[in-house]
């Protein structure tokens, strides 16, 4: 069942790449979209068959691969990976749909998008550390190429920076994985066979440090964030959607799965520092966003801030906060993808993202009123206005973290206020007022331009009004993860003390 998700997309990538006759951009997009939709539908089928009450991995698949290395093809899905897989399936469809039909070298472009999705899907499903790492590294190559070939003016710089940062992140993660297996004496990289509870705290802290920095780069958290705004600005809109909506979540997923889940004691020990780190990330990301005049860079910095909430929630490690972290992952995926799509439409039609040039885009006749309205909805959701998915996610994060880290949580809540500030600046400058002369003659906006963002807007409202439809898939898994971690941490703290 789970392998189908990977194989379908691999097959799609192969069909597009090796199609016998000359393939137009439109046809390439159609074929890719067909495979992506099939993949998404298959994911939904899995969701229907998923049993939310169970806490373990479901639909498990196992094939021995290289025994000597402890590498096996082991897949599974639980309440943590399920929502992220659905989001990945949806956003891959939307990003393919919103790709330009005139994209040069369409075969290569679309096959890379599917390969990227293969990497992400595999990473979310992998139940073996080494397999996770392989998929994690697999997504780097397509993403690097997608930015380097189809990016903006400074694409080479941005792509190289992205590659260097994430390759370094990969090295740290691999080193930590190797350390986990080697030091725990496990004979394989299988997640369920790893027991790190007997390791000394210092060792656990070292392993966790590798995980934190490795995935911290991917998330990204300050001070490892500088690759993200560059990558976003240079990447085309569909790639920014995938980057913000899916790829950053690999980092937060990794933190929860391999940090909190495998090293709960060290996690508990470091958690005050993690919460403080999260707080600074939130405030720094928001402050940088306020200073931006490029709409896309503003949304990119907002991602830095919003991913900080996830770290805060994970640091608090209460059932409610971790549930909030999962919700925030989904919420951020939907909201940031929508904002990037809308910024993309503005850029495509107005030819600029500069807030000093744009004005009055909400004009009902000559502007883009529906795009503007959705942008207002998106920024309201991002600022955590009730009735939208962002509110429930942030509320869960704050409610779950406040008792554990009151100062950090209250400080992070200021970030929500700052989100409203910078997004109001964006909306006020670009959308209100009289249309500026530079954008007085905008070309028509078609429903195909608006449709991807509209789908996300609907989901933002639906899950905002009925968050239970989202929460109930993850709640038992999260509760089990936090309870196991908590009991391990308590057991450990009674046995050992921290060496001076």
């Amino acid at each position, binding site marked *: 069942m789970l392998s189908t998700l990977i194989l379908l997309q691999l097959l799609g990538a192969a069909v597009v790449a090796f199609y016998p006759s000359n393939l137009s951009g439109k046809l390439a997009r159609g074929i890719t979209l067909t495979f992506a939709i099939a993949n998404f539908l298959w994911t939904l089928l899995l969701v229907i068959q998923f049993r939310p009450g169970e806490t373990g991995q479901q639909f498990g698949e196992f094939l021995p691969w290289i025994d000597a290395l402890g590498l096996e093809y082991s897949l599974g899905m639980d309440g943590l990976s399920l929502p992220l897989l659905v989001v990945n399936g949806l956003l891959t469809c939307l990003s393919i749909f919103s790709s330009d039909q005139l994209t040069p070298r369409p075969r290569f472009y679309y096959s890379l998008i599917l390969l990227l999705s293969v990497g992400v899907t595999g990473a979310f499903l992998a139940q073996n550390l080494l397999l996770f790492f392989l998929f994690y590294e697999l997504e780097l190559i397509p993403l690097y190429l997608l930015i380097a070939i189809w990016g903006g003016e400074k694409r080479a710089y941005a792509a190289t920076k992205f590659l260097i940062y994430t390759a370094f992140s990969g090295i740290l993660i691999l080193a930590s994985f190797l350390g986990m297996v080697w030091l725990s004496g496990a004979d394989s990289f299988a997640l369920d066979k790893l027991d790190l509870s007997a390791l000394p705290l210092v060792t656990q802290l070292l392993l966790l440090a590798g995980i934190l920095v490795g995935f911290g780069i991917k998330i990204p958290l300050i001070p490892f964030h500088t690759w993200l705004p560059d990558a976003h600005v240079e990447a085309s809109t569909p790639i920014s959607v995938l980057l913000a909506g899916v790829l950053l979540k690999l980092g937060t997923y990794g933190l929860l799965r391999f940090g909190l889940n495998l090293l709960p004691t060290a996690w508990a020990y470091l958690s005050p520092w993690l919460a403080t780190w999260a707080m600074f990330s939130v405030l720094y990301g928001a402050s940088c966003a306020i200073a931006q005049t490029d709409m896309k860079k503003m949304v990119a910095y907002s991602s830095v801030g919003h991913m900080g909430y996830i770290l805060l929630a994970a640091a608090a490690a209460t059932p409610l906060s971790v549930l909030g972290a999962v919700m925030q992952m989904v919420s951020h995926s939907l909201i940031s993808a929508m904002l990037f799509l809308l910024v993309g439409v503005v850029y495509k039609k107005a030819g600029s993202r500069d807030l000093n040039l744009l004005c*009055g885009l909400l*004009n*009902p*006749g*000559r502007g883009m009123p529906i795009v503007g309205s959705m942008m207002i909805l998106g920024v309201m959701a991002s600022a955590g206005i009730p009735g939208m998915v962002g509110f429930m996610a942030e509320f869960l994060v704050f409610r779950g973290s406040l008792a554990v880290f009151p100062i950090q949580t209250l400080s992070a809540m200021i970030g929500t206020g700052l989100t409203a500030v910078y997004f109001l600046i964006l909306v006020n400058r670009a959308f209100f*007022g*009289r*249309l500026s002369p530079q954008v007085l*003659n*905008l*070309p*028509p*906006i078609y429903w195909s331009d608006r449709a991807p963002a509209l789908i996300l807007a609907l989901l933002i409202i639906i899950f905002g009004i009925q968050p239970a439809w989202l929460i109930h898939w993850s709640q038992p898994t999260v509760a089990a993860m936090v309870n196991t971690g908590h009991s391990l941490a308590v057991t450990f703290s009674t046995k050992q003390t921290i060496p001076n």
Partner: protein
Amino acid sequence: MVTTQNKLSNQILLEYVHRLQNGDTLLNNSPENLLEVVGILKSYGVVLDAYSTNLIYIAEHQFLAFLPFFKYFNGEVSGKKLLRHFWHDRINFEYAEYCMKTMMWHGGGGLDIYLDTEEFCAIAQTVIAAKFKHNPLVMGLNQLFPHTLIEQLRVSAYYSGLGQFWRVMADIFLSLSDSYDRGEIKSIPQVVDFIKAGLVADALKPIIYEVNIAGKLYEIIPKSVGLTFLADTAIPYVEAVFFRGTPFLGVVSYNAQAYQIPLDQSRFQYGALFADPLPIGGAGIPPTLLMHDMRHYLPEYLSKIYRNRLRGEDDLLIQICTSFQKSMFCVTTATILGLLPYPRDTQDISQQKANQVHLEKWMKKLKNSQLLEVNK
């Protein structure tokens, strides 16, 4: 903060004065302008015809009615018509009422003066007494508040005045369109001449207002008062609606307390000739209801032009508004030229001077108008 911009420099202003002296028009003469102006005036004519009919109906049949629920129905109330009304499949008669109120508020002309005279008040009291002969309650209230019902009749007089003015204008615009269809109109100056001729021909047409109460006619504006079409309705209308303030639906974002609105009413510049066709929520919002009405009656050749432009029908109302402004500059040209104290081509130096003063006075009023925008 709203700042007043002098869009037209003195030099450009003088250029336009010379243009008018030479028999040219404020709007540039071009085939596309001609199509737009004639086409939009055709649809405007149809709409004005409906407005005029309704205004006259309200003046003659709904006067002194406290709750005129069916005033837009022109006396034909039926379930089907009511449904269409609520479904909003109808002309926006509200726009005509806004225009009437604008005229009344800004005043000007003989009608405004007459409605403040003792003569009018006496006639009004007679009409009120006749209308409420069997209604002691209203008569009692009229004794207590003697200005209220008279004011209602003043409003009715404006309904009638504007209705009669638009009756003439609708016929001029529709016959202009017919002439164009017959191939008789080939340039913007010809359009202006046609309108001017229409205005001049009806300049002295009397404005009268009579109501029928229990089979007896009451002359609220008798012919003997001497109110005429051009001086007492056309000029006040142009002054109020074209220059000072076009009726609109929307929020005025000017702050009177910060002196962003001139204290002197005559310095208002929120009229149709000044309106920004891009609706932004400030004063100068185009008369949206009128655009909504006109879009239903656009001739095919004009619709085709609009469809072929960059945004197609997305910005139809803005395109209609721009064309409407162009056409109103033609009407304004006709009015300015029609009111010249001496013939335009006079050889007498003193007469030329007087004409020059007249033209400069009008052009100064257009300093902040959209004239340059429509001629871009």
